[in-house]
């Protein structure tokens, strides 16, 4: 630890063997997207020769849990913190405490606009992912009826994906006929889609805020006896399940946020910073639209990057 | 029939009480009159409707038909709270105790002694005063309780009943209703309760309704006995060793009532 002793007790944190420790607190570790990020983090840590500790709340909506995990990292006086805030501004007070305790903070995936304390932001924002999805949809169809499926109501990351897409589609001939939530759950995605199809038999486009719900929606479409060829289904995240579905010719596209890169770059940047280097204050990892054409290649890349069996690094 | 009956307006009068539970008619038009300082015995077979009648008087049940008069005034006893405000206290057959609370607390729930007296719910509990008081009240009934701070739920059947009786006796101001108050009591405790029943009307000017299956007790303490069968009053008598057999006959339905009403149905 470099400075600013927050407690009187603690020895110098997790650096058991004199190595530097980077604590990575993601939103959660229980979803394919975040496991991908975790894979990047681990590889980054291994490549740079630092200890990384990975943590995440039990679900993306458990803000309080994440705050507790950041607090634990401060107590341990880690050398640097990489955080993917579950809620942007809501994490600012605790992250400012970390900065005040002399721990540099790097943000990944979700930025906190206007917060001076951060060292950098690595990622693309979710709104941008939504915009990209919207653009892709406009490429494929210039008119039709779209149904959008949201995540847990009030979850900013899934909400801004939808907002990005809806803002992009505004003014086009695509009409939004359904806007419902399926709590980021696959089974609920299926149920909601089944109801949407009944009320709006002419739906031709489906955009879901994550791949899980998109895959659930596909099951509903199949069950309704409709042809998947006639309906454009787009998800977000580029999970391996989504890739398999695209390879099977079911899902049409998924907007991937290059999650692995986010994880890896953030650790690399943290180490650079700890070694006295200066880093850019914004690193865009970009988004990729994975389609049936690119699915194979992207899938292979995923396979290679997948997190080790046991994501914990201790 | 008793000396009181003509003396004044009855303390309590029930007229034409009807109470139905779904398809069961528990009370089929019951009249009951209780005079000042009178002890009325309410007799009847199991399921005759005695408990239902007294629950209607104390506001636990609402009558389907009929009316209740206190000191000649028609009242709506819509809840047990209302009955208590009219000075009516009861020992129910199922005792209605708080098994999770100790003896002292059980006696005072709903009548708590508080430091600023009038404050009801917000008053500071005066536990010391209550504990002192409890000792006295239980002493008059000579119940042995192993521990006044013990949970009432763990006490013996008789101990529980004694607590319930002590509670009602303490707070009755106008009418005290006792539903089989000595059923679980020991020999001595029973004697004490019967003594209290005899003493209280004089001492505190209250009237008592006693439900009992024990003819001896009824003869000992009651000024008047009302016999019910199948939701109806089938007779009233002045209890004495001589009329005990009559009363039993009325209860089991072997004969016409000796009182003003005949055996119906």
């Amino acid at each position, binding site marked *: 630890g470099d400075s600013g002793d927050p407690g009187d007790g603690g020895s110098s944190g997790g650096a058991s063997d004199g190595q530097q420790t980077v604590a990575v607190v993601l939103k959660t570790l229980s979803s394919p997207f975040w496991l991908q990020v975790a894979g990047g983090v681990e590889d980054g840590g291994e490549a740079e020769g630092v200890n990384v500790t990975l943590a995440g709340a039990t679900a993306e909506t458990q803000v309080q849990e994440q705050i507790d995990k950041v607090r634990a990292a401060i107590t341990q006086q880690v050398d640097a913190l990489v955080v993917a805030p579950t809620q942007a501004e809501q994490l600012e007070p605790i992250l400012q405490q970390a900065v005040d305790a002399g721990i540099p903070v790097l943000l990944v995936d979700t930025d906190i606009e206007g917060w001076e304390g951060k060292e950098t932001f690595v990622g693309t924002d979710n709104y941008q992912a939504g915009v990209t999805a919207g653009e892709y949809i406009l490429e494929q169809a210039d008119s039709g009826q779209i149904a959008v499926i949201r995540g847990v109501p009030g979850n900013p990351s899934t909400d801004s994906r939808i907002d990005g897409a809806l803002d992009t589609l505004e003014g086009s001939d695509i009409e939004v006929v359904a806007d*419902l939530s399926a709590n980021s759950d696959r089974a609920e995605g299926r149920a909601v889609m*089944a109801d949407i199809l*009944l009320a709006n038999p002419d739906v031709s486009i489906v955009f879901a805020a994550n791949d899980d719900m998109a895959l659930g929606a596909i099951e509903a479409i199949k069950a309704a006896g409709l042809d998947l060829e006639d309906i454009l289904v787009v998800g977000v995240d580029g999970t391996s399940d989504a890739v398999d579905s695209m390879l099977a010719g079911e899902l049409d596209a998924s907007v991937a946020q290059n999650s692995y890169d986010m994880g890896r770059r953030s650790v690399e940047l943290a180490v650079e910073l700890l070694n006295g280097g200066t880093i850019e204050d914004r690193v865009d990892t970009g988004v990729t639209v994975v389609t049936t054409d690119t699915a194979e290649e992207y899938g292979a890349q995923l396979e290679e990057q997948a997190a080790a069996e046991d994501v914990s690094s201790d | 029939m008793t000396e009181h009956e003509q003396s004044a307006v009855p303390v309590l009068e029930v007229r034409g009480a009807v109470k139905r539970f779904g398809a069961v008619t528990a009370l089929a038009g019951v009249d009951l009159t209780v005079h000042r300082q009178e002890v009325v015995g309410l007799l009847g077979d199991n399921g005759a409707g005695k408990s239902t009648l007294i629950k209607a008087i104390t506001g636990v049940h609402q009558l389907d038909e009929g009316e209740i008069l206190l000191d000649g005034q028609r009242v709506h006893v819509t809840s047990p709270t209302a009955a208590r405000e009219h000075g009516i206290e009861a020992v129910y057959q199922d005792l209605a105790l708080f098994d999770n609370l100790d003896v002292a607390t059980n006696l005072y729930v709903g009548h708590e002694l508080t430091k600023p007296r009038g404050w009801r719910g917000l008053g500071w509990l005066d536990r010391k005063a209550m504990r002192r008081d409890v000792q006295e009240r239980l002493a008059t009934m000579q119940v042995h309780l192993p521990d006044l701070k013990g949970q009432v739920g763990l006490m013996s059947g008789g101990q529980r009943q004694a607590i319930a009786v002590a509670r009602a006796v303490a707070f009755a101001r106008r009418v005290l209703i006792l539903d089989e108050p000595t059923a679980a009591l020991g020999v001595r405790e029973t004697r004490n309760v019967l003594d209290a029943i005899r003493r209280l009307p004089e001492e505190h000017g209250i009237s008592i309704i006693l439900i009992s299956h024990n003819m001896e007790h009824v003869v000992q303490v009651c000024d008047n006995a009302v016999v019910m069968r199948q939701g109806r009053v089938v007779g009233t008598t002045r209890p004495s060793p001589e009329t005990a057999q009559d009363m039993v006959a009325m209860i089991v339905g072997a004969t016409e009532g000796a009182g003003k009403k005949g055996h119906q149905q």
Partner: protein
Amino acid sequence: MTAVADREDAPPGGPASGKPGRQSRGLHAALTVVRLGPVLLLLIIMAVMAALNPLFLSPFNLGNVGLEASVVAILALGQLLVIVTAGIDLSVGSVIAMSSILGALWIRELDLVSGWLVIPSMILAGGLAGAVNGTLFVKGRLPHPFLPTLAMLMVARGVALIVSDGQPITGMPESIKLFGSGRIGHVPYAVILVAALAVIVYVLLRRITWGQWIYAIGGNREAARRVGVPVDRVLISVYVFSGMCAGTAAIVVSGQTNSAYPTAGNLMELSAIAAVIIGGASFFGGRGTVIGTLVGALILGVIQNGLNLMNVQSSWQYVALGAAVVIAVELDVVRARLETRLRVVRTEETEARA
């Protein structure tokens, strides 16, 4: 009780004394209708939904409703037994995830094509979790199953996440997919599964001794012990059964999504409990019926489906669903009171004529 307060002023003899015949028949009909209980309630709610949205009553949509309510219904049938014993099983949602993941692992590891090995293994996994719940509660002499089943809620979710590595496992055998989306005519297989399970639960609960014991334990656990009911064993078996129902629900969830995923079944326990309670069971034990439980699950399903059909926004759905639940139980209170009232009036009449 308050409903009769206004009648205290009526003259002795009662208002019904004079009119026999016609009114009586009307009364009888009214009583029959009102006694339908929760079913009446469901019909009212369905009528409202149909009025609001013409699509609602289409046979296909009714199939959808059945399909969507089936998972909650299966869980609720297991939960019913638990609630009748005055217990609660909070773990069922997580157990869905654990069972389906364990079943899916079989498929992946052994490359099973047929579901007929996977299905029993899912049910078994659920039963195992239930056995742990029951044993902890009963043998651990805990006063209430809230904590052990809450612990299982966490542990089962954890196990699901750990063994699946947080990843969904896609690809289910045909037999399982059938339960997820297959239909015979308009009737989904899942609905047939629910019906079969309901018959089983009905028989267990009402026709054999074990069910009698469950009601006895719920009515008075200490008394059940005293009359020689093997209380501990019955209680454990009830949690095992609830776990097996969760395993059965896992089949439907896996079939619906053609996959097993570790976050499946999240919060389903609350819906299942709500269904049982809406169906008229008592949290204090000893009361509850199979029909009521099914109707409770259907009420929740109908409301959700109706709101989706009308494209009500999720934030408004929360409000609407909450309001609908309250209205539903409130209607049932009114219905029950009306029933008592009608019975009393009928008795009055019978007596008046006699």
